[in-house]
């Protein structure tokens, strides 16, 4: 039974009071969260960090050889440490800004956007709870991460206990920076700041003088958010979530992927079939400069790290190959957008006069070329600086074959198989299915990197310090090392590419039913 009650705050005096009454109504539905819930989440995160994060961080530090790390930690100047920290924060902030363009921290329900955010109430007030939550969560996450990392360093005697305070402070600062970058990414997303006026749920702009000015483009970034932009992001994030739960990676990717609006003056020039597909990929990347730049930077960084591990004059730690394989692959996958678009379109009637297999091969040409260019630049620069042996370059270039196979498999994944959704398998099976090809490719790259490293060391080491009497024996050892590495690399490359082309064939034929 509904009974009428007099509101204790009396007549409406401000947007804050009005919003308070709205929240009271919403709270009756029992759907709104509370700070108690947030406190519980922090408690669980802290426990998780203590139980799992600290041991894992210690293991990771041990794996990357604590010796040089201790020397670096104790020998580095405060300026150098600050520069490293600033670089890491800047990278994280840039990533958060990119994420914010797709899904920002302000993510209310669609009904709240249409009925409350679209009202004449000050937008700063209506969306601020989400911002406070995101800011708080980011600061807590940063602080915990800082404490876990510095705690692990203290446990391994890499630094004194006092470093914990510095870690917490640095983590919290990074959290603030990342949260703000995330929000600014959302406000810079397409359409986010287009309309200076708030929009009512019926689509009519709010009349000037009541709420309009406070929701304009000036002032706090929260006031620059528009209802259509919030609407778009809410729909996108729900679509992505639903698609991810269904194992529909294609759907999730299409929901997250931006739609190009630039470069329309560029024209696709006619050419022969294979070449025009390559030109298509070039023009596609030019119309998506953020993708192009991030893919190139990732390939540059990844291939540089791989060169250091494979042919470093001074022994590079293991983490260089772990990170290099991950980042290099991500860069190459980013440049393989044309291949993924072909995968997205499988099952539709053929429009192009080129067989699907040939089309896929043509789509591999550009990422392969860009990867080779990046290896040449990164490896060439390191070789010129005397940090690596030039013999590492062909090996790192050849690793691109495994990455291309990974790109093929990723583009033609299709939907998750039905058994993955059985009650006995659960979410872990779905996650396992989603990450399996990437994990397999990563492990294959790591194994090949180590074998290539051994081959380069055998060749270079022998050439540098080889007594005349041992020349023949050393040549045999070098040849064995090179042949072994080549065989393994060739087998894994053929395996990955074969798996990828098999997936392409399966997906192309799947619609025949």
């Amino acid at each position, binding site marked *: 039974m509904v009974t009428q009650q007099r509101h204790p705050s009396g007549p409406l005096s401000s947007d804050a009071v009005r919003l308070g009454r709205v929240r009271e109504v919403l709270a009756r539905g029992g759907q709104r969260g509370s700070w108690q819930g947030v406190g519980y989440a922090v408690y669980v995160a802290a426990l998780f960090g203590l139980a799992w994060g600290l041991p894992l961080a210690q293991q990771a530090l041990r794996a990357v050889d604590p010796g040089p790390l201790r020397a670096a930690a104790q020998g580095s100047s405060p300026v150098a440490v600050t520069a490293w920290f600033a670089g890491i924060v800047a990278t994280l902030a840039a990533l958060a800004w990119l994420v914010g363009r797709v899904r920002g921290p302000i993510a209310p329900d669609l009904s709240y956007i249409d009925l409350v955010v679209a009202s004449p109430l000050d937008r700063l007030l209506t969306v601020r709870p989400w911002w406070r939550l995101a800011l708080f969560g980011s600061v807590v996450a940063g602080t915990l991460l800082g404490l876990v990392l510095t705690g692990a360093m203290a446990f391994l005697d890499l630094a004194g206990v006092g470093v914990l305070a510095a870690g917490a402070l640095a983590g919290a600062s990074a959290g603030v920076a990342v949260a703000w970058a995330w929000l600014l990414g959302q406000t810079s997303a397409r359409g986010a700041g287009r309309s200076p006026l708030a929009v009512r749920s019926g689509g009519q702009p709010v009349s000037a003088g009541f709420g309009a000015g406070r929701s304009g483009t000036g002032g706090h970034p929260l006031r620059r958010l528009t209802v259509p932009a919030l609407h778009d992001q809410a729909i996108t994030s729900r679509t992505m979530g639903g698609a991810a739960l269904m194992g529909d990676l294609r759907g999730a990717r299409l929901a997250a992927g931006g739609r190009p609006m630039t470069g329309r003056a560029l024209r696709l020039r006619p050419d022969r079939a294979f070449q025009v597909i390559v030109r298509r990929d070039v023009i596609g990347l030019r119309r998506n400069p953020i993708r192009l730049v991030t893919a190139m930077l990732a390939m540059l960084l990844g291939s540089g790290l791989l060169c250091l591990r494979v042919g470093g004059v001074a022994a590079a730690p293991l983490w260089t190959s772990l990170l290099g394989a991950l980042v290099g692959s991500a860069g190459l996958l980013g440049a393989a957008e044309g291949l993924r678009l072909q995968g997205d379109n499988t099952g*539709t009637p053929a*429009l192009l006069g080129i067989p699907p297999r040939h089309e896929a091969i043509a789509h591999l040409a550009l990422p392969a070329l860009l990867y080779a260019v990046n290896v040449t630049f990164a490896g060439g620069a390191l070789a010129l600086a005397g940090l690596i042996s030039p013999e590492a370059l062909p090996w790192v270039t050849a690793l691109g074959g495994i990455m291309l196979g990974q790109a093929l498999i990723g583009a033609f994944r299709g939907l998750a198989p039905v058994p993955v959704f059985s009650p006995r398998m659960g979410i872990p099976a779905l996650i396992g299915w989603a990450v399996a090809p990437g994990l397999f490719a990563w492990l294959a790259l790591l194994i090949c990197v180590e074998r290539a490293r051994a081959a380069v060391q055998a060749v270079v080491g022998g050439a540098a310090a080889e007594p005349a009497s041992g020349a023949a024996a050393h040549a045999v050892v070098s040849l064995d090392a090179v042949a072994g590495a080549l065989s393994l690399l060739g087998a894994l490359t053929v395996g990955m590419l074969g798996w990828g082309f098999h997936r392409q064939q399966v997906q192309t034929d799947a619609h025949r039913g």
Partner: protein
Amino acid sequence: MMAGMPPTPSDQPSPAGPAAAVGAATGDAVLHADGVSKQVDGAWLLHPTDLVAGPGECVVVRGPNGTGKTTLLRIVAGLLAPTSGTVTYRGRPVDDRDPATRAALAALVGAPTAYRDLTVTDHLVLVDATWGGDPAGCDARAAATLESLEIGHLATRFPHELSSGQQQLFHLALFLQRPAQVLVLDEPEQRLDPHKRAILTELLSARIESGKTLVIATHDEDLSDALADYVLELTAW
């Protein structure tokens, strides 16, 4: 010539043998669908049906929703394997995995492939180039196709910037840009205004007059009357 199918309860075994036949005299025909049907988990999507068509002929497939028009077109285009029966073009089984089928048959059944990072005119250039069009005249051919549908002003738009009707015209442009001997279309008139439907009718008539074979499903009686040499009327079961 019209042929209907006898009403039988759905999800029951279909009567043996073809239930419908339409088309050219067998001697002139190049496209044969003999007793094709589709059944999924016991449910009949299409009962056994015959369809025959020759060069310069148009077969219009009509019937209420759910009678299997789109399924028939997908089978005829080689996109879907029939449960029973065969489809041949010039004596060769139709299968879109076969390059010969892809070269001979063009199908507009559902939304075709589109790249979200290419403009409308880029798409036409891509289609033309991959079918071996002379690069020297490719731009002109793309422009001519757009002008024939009166959408030349959309040349630099991205697909996601088109309205629903413009999307349909864009799909038709892609479809008409590629060479083919047999054109298979599923309700090409949908979302088009009367003027654009008239343009479409003219374009398809011209293709038929040039010797192409047309198989089209439509609910538009004007389009059907203007194009049909034969009508295959599918009925509800």
